[in-house]
């Protein structure tokens, strides 16, 4: 992977956001808010953090990225296409009959997606199993897991938080997309998660909080996690759902629907104007 400047990474994230909008319009269904909100995280992972080879997706020593909240897969597909896993033109097949880009990702369909996901709360346990098995064999790669905040309602997720804490899985780094929304509304109304940092600490995890739109902070946090040898690390990334498209930002109703063709035009115009200069919370 060539080295990118932060500015180039921001531009890349912006291009990925544009492709997300185009894919969703072509699909006619799918989720908007989560993919736009995590474009910076995926860009940082695929273009600056992970050891991986798009031309050799089954490379034994690659870092693994387990996406737990499978419904945000448009951002993963778009980022993978930009990284060179498959042609960008294939993105428009999202959710169509015969596509490799299923509505929720499937391991057997698309090399590089690592696992099948969608039903919430099961990704962290899979990532933990992966990390445990890799450590048994003395493997040096890292296992990354991206989770939503809403899926913290699931018992299966907390079972895995217990497990990774008990077995000190320091080769596991979890990034929580803390965007405060889920289908039925705001997380703190549906089922309050706070104090989330304290919860993870109580389970023997290292916790780092970042602005999920600040690529530099994301990269730094993963570097910090690499230095932790005692326990697994969770990076709580504060994000704005729908980030980059003003009429989608922070609105739960954009969780699970695509833009219309008309809305997409406005969204793409906005993203073009931004040119990657999205405002992060620290600006």
């Amino acid at each position, binding site marked *: 992977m060539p080295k990118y400047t932060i500015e180039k990474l921001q531009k890349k994230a912006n291009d990925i956001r544009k492709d997300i909008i185009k894919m969703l319009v072509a699909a006619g269904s799918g989720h908007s808010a989560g993919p736009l909100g995590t474009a910076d995280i995926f860009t940082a992972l695929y273009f600056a953090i992970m050891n991986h080879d798009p031309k050799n997706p089954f490379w034994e020593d690659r870092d693994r990225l387990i996406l737990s909240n499978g419904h945000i897969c448009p951002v993963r597909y778009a980022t993978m296409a930009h990284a060179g896993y498959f042609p960008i033109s294939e993105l428009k097949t999202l959710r169509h009959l015969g596509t490799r880009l299923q509505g929720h990702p499937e391991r057997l369909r698309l090399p590089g997606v690592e696992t099948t996901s969608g039903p919430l709360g099961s990704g962290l346990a*899979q990532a933990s199993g992966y990390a445990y*098995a890799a450590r048994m064999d003395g493997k040096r790669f890292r296992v990354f897991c991206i989770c939503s905040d809403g899926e913290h309602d699931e018992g*299966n997720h907390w079972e895995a938080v*217990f497990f990774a804490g008990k077995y000190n899985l320091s080769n596991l780094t979890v990034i929580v997309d803390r965007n405060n929304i889920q289908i039925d509304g705001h997380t703190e109304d549906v089922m309050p998660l706070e104090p989330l940092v304290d919860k993870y600490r109580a389970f023997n995890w290292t916790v780092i909080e970042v602005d999920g739109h600040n690529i530099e902070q994301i990269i730094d946090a993963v570097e910090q996690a690499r230095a932790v040898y005692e326990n697994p690390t969770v990076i709580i990334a504060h994000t704005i759902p729908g980030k980059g498209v003003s009429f989608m930002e922070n609105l739960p109703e954009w969780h699970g629907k695509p833009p219309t063709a008309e809305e997409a035009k406005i969204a793409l115009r906005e993203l073009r104007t931004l040119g990657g200069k999205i405002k992060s919370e620290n600006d």
Partner: protein
Amino acid sequence: MINKEAKLSKKIFQKDIEMIPTRQGYGEGLVAVGEKDERVVVLCADVTESTRSILFKERFPERFIEVGVAEQALATIAAGMANYGKIPFISSYAAFSPGRNWEQIRTTIALNDVPVKIAGAHAGISVGPDGATHQMLEDMALMRAMPNMTVIAPCDSLEAKKATVAAAKTEHPVYIRFAREKSPVFTTEDTPFKIGRAEVLWGPSTISGRHGDPLVAIVACGPLVYEALLAAKELEKKGIDVLVLNSHTLKPLDEQAIIRAAKTTGAVVTVEEHQITGGLGGAVAETLARNYPTPMEFVGMPDHFGESGAPDELLEKYGMKSKSIVEAVKRVIVKKEKNG
């Protein structure tokens, strides 16, 4: 008469036949596959002793993983390990795995098509005093409906061991159910076992497929295969010849053997320690309805939950002992004759 090719135990109908629960065969099978294959790991959800996973734990402590009373984690952690390249066996009670974690098995194991082997212990009503909550009678229906899944119900502890060893060799998910209660060990090391192949235990060694004797085919799975054999012996005394097929694999079902048996006899009785709906009876009925519609009777749990009691009392009350199988055979003969 007993099919000699099946190489059943010489003690089969003697009082001093060895009694061992099928879960013990699982534990022994785990040790056998652990020795053969470094990739084998065993995960357990706080029931290490009773699932007999303890045999593996004692032999290979570094490859045994305790996940706590968390069956959803049990399935999904194993899915991650299998995805990496391990061959995980996951041990719990069938009521909880696959009972509680069915969706996790569906998405992360079956749809992913990774080689996790699911061991459901304490299956069936013979769990006894623990009562309905722990007497899993729906597991085979749950797992049989799932694509990419193999489903096996071994008939005794030796077959349970063979099934465990065979499961480790496939690159796909497998579900095997085991019983809590001791049951007769009536097969031997030499009894043939192959996933997906039903064996004739009682009757002529080759079934002609031509109509005539025997009159009824009994298709059974799990420890109740022994009750089917007792029924066959009883019927023989009355001059009624039957076939007994051990259909240990529900999926993929040995359709050819079952169709052949139906063509020979013209009447079928299924026997299982499971709800009549969706288990072996359902699988056989689906196959015959498509290929060779045949009068059938079903021995199994009649759409009812269990209750506390001694295993034998419960099997008797809910009609799964040899006496009930004999009655089912007589009923199906009457049905067949009406049709004929």
